[in-house]
């Protein structure tokens, strides 16, 4: 068994764009659920809009990557508005049902062959990061994300973070987006605005009776959280192709696991939760097949890799039951469960 190889591959996930994407979307969920009490089960939909908005912006609209990114963010804002106007008057659990359905609608719209020219249907979209585009679409992605990379060609860093200029550029951009996002959220939740949305989480009638426009605050929270979801989707799109098969409901549940791991009502929780989630994912995904190969597990190595998903489910259950406040959450906050 290649222990060092496993550890090295695992460690690389600390700086993986996927981890950053999860952290960003998890931050959005923290605003939604942890601070405003909005039970959003459709974060995958927001991420899909961020990713597809960007890809379509580059490929179909021919925008440079930074403007295309705003297409994705704008799409998520519009989605939040459409979702919020009818549903924010609903009680928490109904919102959960509606959001899960809305995210599925988004995914199915992206999957249907009716819009194949724009969305690529089941094949998804690729080549939007450029430079140079693809064989079928040579000018596509001319203004893509990769084209803006100021880092010279070559390999940088040290194991396990020895990577080419493209990966490093992605990491740096991701880290900057993440740092700014964490700062903004930290500022927001520690401000009077944050106080109001935390009040709404506790009892919206009481906050309404104090003269606050509860609906407007919930809408703001939904939009802000949704934008972070879209940023997460963007981050995924910067690093790889977009495909509707990625933005499924289980993505939402992975995000929830990462969020609850770190602590729902915290600013750094989603970040740390995502890192732990992905490091564990990667570690178990490599460890189990290796053990299976040695004959220590009663599965073949392909099955063994799937076992981790079972463990994630178990972990989510245990977490919610025994440590609902997460790693960073304030224990006191959960001492008095409503």
């Amino acid at each position: 068994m290649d222990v060092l190889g496993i550890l090295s591959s695992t460690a690389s996930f600390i700086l993986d764009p996927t981890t950053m994407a999860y952290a960003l979307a998890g931050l959005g969920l923290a605003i939604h659920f942890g601070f405003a009490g909005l039970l959003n089960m459709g974060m995958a939909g927001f991420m899909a809009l961020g990713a597809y908005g960007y890809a379509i912006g580059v490929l179909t609209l021919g925008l440079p990557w930074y403007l295309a990114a705003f297409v994705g963010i704008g799409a998520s804002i519009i989605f939040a508005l459409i979702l919020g106007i009818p549903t924010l008057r609903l009680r928490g659990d109904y919102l959960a049902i509606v959001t899960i359905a809305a995210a599925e609608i988004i995914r199915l719209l992206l999957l249907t062959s009716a819009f194949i020219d724009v969305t690529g249907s089941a094949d998804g979209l690729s080549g939007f990061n450029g430079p140079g585009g693809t064989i079928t679409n040579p000018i596509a992605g001319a203004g893509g994300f990769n084209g803006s990379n100021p880092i010279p060609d070559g390999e940088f860093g040290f194991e396990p973070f020895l990577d080419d200029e493209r990966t490093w550029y992605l990491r740096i951009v991701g880290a900057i987006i993440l740092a700014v996002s964490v700062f903004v959220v930290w500022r927001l939740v520690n401000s009077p605005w944050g106080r109001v949305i935390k009040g709404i989480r506790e009892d919206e009638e009481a906050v309404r009776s104090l003269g606050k426009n509860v609906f407007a605050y919930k809408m703001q929270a939904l939009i802000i959280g949704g934008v972070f979801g879209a940023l997460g989707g963007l981050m995924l799109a910067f690093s790889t192709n977009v495909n509707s098969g990625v933005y499924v409901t289980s993505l939402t549940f992975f995000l929830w696991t990462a969020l609850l791991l770190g602590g729902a009502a915290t600013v750094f929780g989603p970040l740390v939760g995502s890192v732990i989630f992905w490091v564990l994912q990667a570690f178990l995904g490599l460890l189990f097949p290796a053990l299976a190969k040695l004959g220590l597990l009663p599965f073949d190595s392909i099955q063994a890799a799937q076992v981790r998903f079972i463990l994630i489910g178990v972990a989510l259950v245990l977490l919610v039951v025994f440590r609902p406040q997460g790693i960073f959450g304030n224990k006191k906050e959960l001492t008095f469960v409503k």
Partner: protein
Amino acid sequence: MSSNDKPATPVKSTGLHVGAIKPGVAKKDPILIADSVRRQFGGLTAVDVEHVEIPRNAITALIGPNGAGKTTFFNLLTGFDNPNTGTWSFNGKSLAGVAAFKVARMGLIRTFQLTKALSLLTVMDNMKLGSTQQRGEKLWASMFHFLWKKKDVEIEAQALDLLKRFNLDAKKDDYAASLSGGQRKLLEMARALMTKPELVMLDEPMAGVNPALTQSLLEHILNLKKEGMTVLFVEHDMHMVRHIADWVIVMAEGKVVAEGDPHEVMRNPAVIDAYLGSHQDDDLGTITGRITLPKPGKEK
């Protein structure tokens, strides 16, 4: 135990009405006027108020049997529920169709029968939420510390002052969830006062509060009047009603059935029949026949 050194006998406001006393009688200086407010839930008419006026700068009690529609009437007046028909105005401004939060901003604030403390916020944060002056509650301004920090300090001082009066200052950094039921009532009332209201509507402020705390709550309510506020409250404790109310409105089956000065109203046979019962001042033991008191003479 409580804050102020005020004497026990409150100064009653009198001469609040115009003309003969009857349900819906006009007031000299009404702060709130409701006309033909009706709310139906399916076949049930919960509230059907022809006309009622609440006198300004006085303490008005709204009493009536369970299910009389008192809380529903509260909800209608404050925009938490919409009536099927009716108009009502506060300070001359019509409130029909006005959203609850706007009603609160106009100076009509209410508390709830089931206390709504914001459990996982600290007592201080609960209080700060009551202020309507903080522009840092706006999304964009909230990100710039310097735009709201000064105001927050002012609000904190105001909150601390109120908390002291309500004997909650020692608890200011605790979560509201850790407060007892009575303390939550106090917190809710103090929080409502942070909005600097003109009319305070209290829904059963004494329910579940121990006698000592009741006394200090009474003083707080009397102080509100002294500070120029108008109080409308729902309460089942008749001793309290008699003690502090300047005016009593009796509701039964959604309608206003009687009005008047507390002592008069409580002698009204219709009120006794519908609500008080004929043994209201007797010891429960004598009613059930388990004990016999030497004489029913109680403190008046």
